[in-house]
């Protein structure tokens, strides 16, 4: 196998290597206040 093929293979492996995301791509929708009183309904 030619030496540069190893380089191509290694680069390709690096490209397809899936690293887990720690931070999402975009911010989630804003949340509102919830009434979580044990005997309460759903709040606002």
């Amino acid at each position, binding site marked *: 196998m030619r*030496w540069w093929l190893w380089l191509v293979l290694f680069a390709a492996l690096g*490209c397809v290597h899936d690293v887990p995301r*720690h931070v999402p791509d975009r911010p989630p929708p804003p949340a509102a*206040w919830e*009434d979580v*009183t044990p005997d309460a309904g759903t*709040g606002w």
Partner: protein
Amino acid sequence: MLRLAALWLAGVCASGCAFMNQSVQLAPLPSFTERTLAPRRVVLRELVDARGDTSRVGVVKNGWGMETASVVTPDELPGAVSDALADSLIASGWTVVRAASNAAVPVPRGEDWVLSGWLSSVMSEPIMGVWTIGLRAEAELTLEVRTASRLFRRTLRAFHLEPDNLVCFAGCVEEGLRAALSQVVHDAVKALMELSERVPPQSVEPAPTLLYLRLEALP
């Protein structure tokens, strides 16, 4: 075999590997002032650190997007957020009493509140481009407000995107994380002001001793 190892090493180095942890300073955080029509007196319990991984606040990646090191901070983050939150509420005209997170706090009376919460995420992650590096940073804080009769909860998520640069060292990571943490504090202050104006003040029941005095005063 030796040539292959040399090629692998050259490839790793050429991709901009960083095997050293980056240390960032995140405290103190800035405070904010918001206008409020209904200033409250609150007992602020220290926020709890509920992050899944408290050993790091971000990851360092090489040119192929592989994680090679961590971003760490010597600062105590829940304490820093608690301080910024307390300073902001005081600057906005509220009265704040600090308490430990596990302190026994009595049920609030009248217009008083007990405020507690937990920090569930502080994380940064580089975005590896072909020639540039961007950065995403997020902070997530959940607040609980106990009034005399109700319990309210809200989760605030701040997200900061650093623009692409040729390099992104510790200064860039620190800037992104501080922006996300500052944003979550500012959002928390605005959310508390909003709740303060939406929740009507509770009527204070007369203390039993006063009732007895009134009964004794009857003919």
